[in-house]
């Protein structure tokens, strides 16, 4: 999948302007909707529309529709099974490319992804101002579109057509795809069960058990009991355990504010694009500050602190994703409602003159195809939908749309066919909007406004993912034995980690603290630095591996099993990474997906930055968050981790140079040395200085 996504990362800036309609084209705002400069001075384009359309033109006989459908690909048989989606996405890249249009503005993934509303510049009114004025002559109307949105819609119709016309190969922003899969170390994974190196996995755990036995024997010899001294346990469970639980509950409960906000937005008390996103951002900042402030106020031991801080960050990301996705959908919802209203208005405006001219066969054909596509498309995803609808409609209608656009631009009046095309464009827009409102959901029952329920929110809070979607692939039932096994593994691993830290990490750490308290000078302490580092290398690596295993293999799998969440892609094969960006992508997939969708792509669409800058922004935010965690942990701000993380950016570009490119083993060796030495180095630095 990684190759796929890389291959499909688009060059956005290349097509920001539209050649076909230069005067209408303008900037593309970050939700993918163009902000048009009305450089025509008056801005009002009046169209003379000869009204003669038959009212029943939109609804035509279904048999004709079916015959048309059968010519094309048959999406009726296609179920919205995510596997199918993936396969389709992998299998037919050429088709996919043809499906995407020439500009990012109309690309499905684009609009879907960019749901952020922060710092939005375009002030989009939710009502459309299209006036139809009766002209002096009977049956002729003057369509006045004084709203950029109408032009926008027309423009997109043009784009669809242009895409079909040019058949240009263009990549499209890939949506985050959820599939059914297992984690690598899961016993359910057939690839793991048949792995030729299975025995070494056994060996690893046996070695850990052997280590436990040794520690136990040592303790018995030194302290007379197997458990030995219990400084770590005392620190962890001595005080405030109940308060910790309560705090965590409160943090979890407080996320429901996001649901309330979305409800308010839906009911129209707030507008997401104006005040909603600001409120949300303020709330998130307050939330994080409160969580961190509380840990500092209670002066908790570092274990409590780290738990609460990390958990609050998880909740923070969840809230962010929920709010910004739903906020984006709310704006779409409003637009759809407005468009529907306008369409009704247009239909009502149809003249009731008896002499409705006979509908031309081509026109009939267009209409039938239009309705068909809208009914069929409920079962396909939006990419296919757009391609289809455009394929059916605008390919044959090309000249019509172009003439509508031309008429709009030049201010000429529209004839019957053009008027009709205009309506069809609006309909297509409505269809695509409702398709987006449905998102990944398979049925209308889960489409946008219906998902704003408490149960959906609670479900989302429990799911092991940070990217909100209306629906996820689910499995049929819970395997309770699996839950028991993974839960046992969780507690077992935590136990092992505590033993390791007590036996191997606590002594050197206590030594540094003792040195500081004894007033040893910094020079002498620095002399101790390599020995402290050497003592901590192996235990810290083990701790690191085990922490990763506990969270990404055990805890997330338990959560997924309990919630029947089928996509277990919580990590990739990060141990084979050849560079740091690969590691960053692979070791923590949920957060990576979050950053990809809500930071990387949002910054591209919001600030119109290049891919490189967006990558840097993502890295920067990630580094800030890590430094924040370190600051909470050690109660000092030193910036070592921050510096080291930002150093990775030039390192990544170094690894892309000729010197290192293609040298897989060498890259992997460098990566592992960094991962091996890095944590102990940092910890020693923080402890000694």
């Amino acid at each position: 999948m990684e190759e796929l996504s890389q291959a499909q990362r688009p060059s956005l800036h290349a097509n920001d302007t539209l050649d076909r309609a230069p005067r209408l084209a303008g900037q593309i705002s970050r939700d993918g909707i163009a902000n048009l400069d009305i450089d025509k001075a008056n801005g009002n384009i009046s169209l003379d529309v000869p009204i003669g359309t038959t009212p029943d033109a939109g609804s035509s006989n279904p048999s004709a529709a079916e015959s048309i459908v059968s010519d094309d690909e048959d999406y009726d048989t296609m179920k919205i099974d995510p596997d199918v989606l993936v396969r389709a996405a992998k299998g037919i890249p050429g088709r996919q490319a043809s499906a995407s249009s020439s500009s990012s503005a109309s690309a499905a993934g684009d609009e879907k992804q960019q749901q952020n509303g922060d710092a939005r510049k375009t002030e989009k009114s939710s009502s459309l101002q299209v006036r139809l004025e009766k002209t002096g002559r009977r049956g002729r109307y003057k369509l006045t579109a004084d709203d950029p949105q109408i032009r926008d819609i027309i423009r997109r119709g043009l784009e669809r057509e242009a895409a079909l016309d040019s058949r240009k190969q263009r990549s499209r922003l890939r949506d985050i795809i959820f599939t059914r899969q297992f984690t690598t170390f899961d016993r359910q994974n057939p690839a793991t069960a048949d792995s030729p190196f299975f025995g070494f996995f056994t060996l690893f755990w046996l070695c850990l058990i052997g280590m436990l036995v040794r520690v136990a024997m040592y303790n018995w010899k030194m302290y007379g009991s197997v458990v030995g001294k219990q400084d770590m346990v005392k620190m962890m469970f001595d005080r405030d355990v109940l308060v910790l639980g309560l705090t965590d509950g409160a943090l979890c409960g407080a996320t429901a504010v996001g649901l309330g906000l979305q409800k308010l937005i839906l009911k129209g008390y707030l507008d997401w694009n104006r005040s909603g996103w600001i409120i949300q951002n303020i709330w998130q900042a307050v939330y994080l500050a409160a969580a961190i402030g509380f840990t500092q106020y209670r002066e908790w031991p570092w274990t409590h602190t780290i738990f609460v801080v990390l958990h609050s960050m998880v909740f923070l990301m969840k809230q962010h994703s929920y709010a910004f996705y739903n906020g984006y959908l709310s704006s779409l919802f409003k637009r759809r409602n407005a468009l529907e209203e306008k369409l009704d208005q247009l239909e009502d405006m149809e003249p009731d003159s008896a002499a409705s001219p006979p509908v031309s066969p081509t026109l009939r054909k267009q209409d039938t195809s239009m309705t068909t596509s809208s009914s069929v498309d409920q079962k396909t995803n939006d990419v296919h939908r757009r391609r289809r609808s455009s394929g059916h409609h605008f390919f044959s209608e090309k000249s019509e749309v172009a003439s509508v656009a031309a008429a709009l631009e030049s201010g000429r009046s529209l004839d019957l066919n053009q008027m009709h095309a205009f309506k069809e464009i609006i309909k297509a827009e409505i269809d695509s909007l409702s398709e987006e409102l449905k998102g990944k959901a398979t049925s209308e029952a889960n489409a946008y406004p219906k998902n704003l329920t408490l149960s959906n929110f609670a479900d989302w809070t429990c799911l092991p993912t940070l990217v909100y979607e209306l629906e996820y692939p689910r499995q049929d039932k819970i395997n309770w034995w699996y839950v028991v096994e993974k839960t046992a593994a969780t507690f077992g691993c935590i136990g092992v980690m505590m033993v390791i830290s007590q036996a191997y990490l606590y002594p050197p750490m206590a030594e540094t603290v003792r040195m500081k308290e004894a007033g040893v000078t910094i020079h002498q302490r620095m002399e101790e630095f390599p020995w402290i580092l050497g003592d901590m290398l192996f235990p810290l690596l083990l701790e690191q591996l085990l922490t990763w295993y506990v969270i990404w293999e055990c805890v997330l799998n338990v959560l997924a099993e309990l919630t029947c969440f089928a996509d277990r892609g919580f990590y990739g094969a990060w141990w084979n990474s050849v560079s740091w960006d690969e590691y960053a992508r692979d070791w923590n997939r949920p957060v990576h997906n979050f950053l990809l969708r809500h930071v990387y792509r949002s910054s591209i669409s919001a600030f119109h930055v290049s891919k490189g800058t967006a990558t840097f922004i993502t890295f920067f935010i990630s580094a800030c968050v890590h430094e924040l965690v370190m600051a909470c942990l050690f109660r000092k701000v030193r910036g070592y981790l921050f510096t080291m993380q930002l150093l990775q950016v030039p390192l990544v570009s170094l690894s892309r140079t000729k010197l290192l490119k293609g040298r897989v083993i060498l890259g992997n060796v460098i990566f592992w040395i960094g991962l091996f030495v890095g944590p102990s180095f940092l910890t020693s630095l923080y402890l000694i200085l």
Partner: protein
Amino acid sequence: MSTSAEVRPNGSVDLLQPKPRKPVIPSLLRTRNDSEEGHSSNGTPASGASSRGATPVPEDAPPSAHATSSARQQIRAFHKRRIFPTVEYAARVSHFDPNSDYTDFRGFFVLFWIGLAIMCITAMLRNMKETGYPLTIRQWSLFTENIWEMGLSDALMVASTAISLPLHKMYMGSAGALRWRRGGIVIQSLFQAVWLSFWVYWPFLRTWTWTAQVFFTLHLLAMFMKMHSYAFYSGHLSEVRRRLMALDEPETTSASRAKLVRYPSTRTLPTSPTKEQIGEATKTEPAKSDLESLREDLAFELTSPLGRVTYPQNLTLYNYLDYLFCPTLCYELEYPRTKGIQWMELFYKSLAVFGCIFLMTVTSEEFVIPVLEESAPRLQRSQTFSEGSLILAETISRLLFPFMVIFLLVFLVIFEYVLGAFAEITCFADRQFYADWWNSTDWLEFSREWNIPVHNFFRRHVYSASRANLSRPVATVITFFISALAHELVMICITKKFRGYGFFAMMLQMPIVMVQRSKLVRGRTLLNNVLFWCSMILGLSMMCALYVLV
């Protein structure tokens, strides 16, 4: 595992990847092999279960029947077995080879090496701090003390194996009492016994250090096996050639016309009856064709699997030298070869050999020797049995990790790097010196998989040889017995003590395997794998502690 690939008859060298884990059900393995060989064609059981002299197809049978019959015959001809058990060599790569397909977990392999490197560096730093020197290799004298004498003896030992070549020419040339089946086999066996006992005793006589002695003894055993394989296979071929020559005058001589060719027996199903067809009377085929086919079979036996060398051509010194350098213990007339030497690979492998030896030295220096030195006097001072056993248990627990690391390093250095380097030098294409023993579920499986050259030797020259007269389990026990004796010999060389712990522990594996094959634990792969690793880790450090301290 050695049967995972059939030798391509045309000797094509497409590299074969090691197999993934074995399927649990042996029948699965068989079907896979069958489909690989591509003879599950029209549903007829083409495994050669019927007798060779198949019922002749009537003249008026439909063409389809004729076609089926001839297809069967062709396939049988393809799978014709030699009378001497063969080892199938093919161009293969090992699991840890850079060209291997198994890269899923390569990162952890890298981690293993980096972990070892960092361990070495920290140990050296600590030594610097304490003593001022990065390494105080107290074992250094162990390596250097007898090095010249050892090298010379080793060269002499290897050279003395070449006596087999003139000896064999003698057996081949003589028609009377000295021919292989009569006197030759006796002479050769006597020679080998004398040769082996002399060279085994030599280091004891010269009181070498244990490192030199272990190296010498291991090399000696390898050379012994090579020589044995060479002599006995060539001897067999000389007899076959004699029969073939005798057939030229069938009327005058009373050449045996017993059928030669065996049909492939299904090795994977232990319960199925053997399908050896030797000596089965042919009823339907006419006598002339019988003679023809016998001649063909004999000629087939004398030709190499790849079909470029026939028997007496190979009796050259060059061929023998080449065989000595090839990383295999089973003599064949011809082996699959690679196109040329990859010098970089050779360089990396040689580097890895020295790196591994260095790592092993550091590990034993830092983690093994201090423990043993500390425990030995304490054990001597201990009065009661319980106190002594406690000290022993503590020592074992402290030796667990170092021995684990040393064991893995020994495995890697021998089977991946030394053998790989020799394979690179000789362009030997079959790099499968080990299979996935780490997934083993019992000891038998481990012994089959972790040392494939020796396993092949035992299967060909010990197990199959004893199978002629003995039943399957007895042959297995004998094979195991010999292997245990050899291991005990190595332990004696290392410790200069005769204790028999290793021998006992190895023979104990037999009943344990019986238990593991019982219904209760059978098929529980994970459990058995855990048990295997436990016995492996515990066993190694226990052996060390017992031999050194007790």
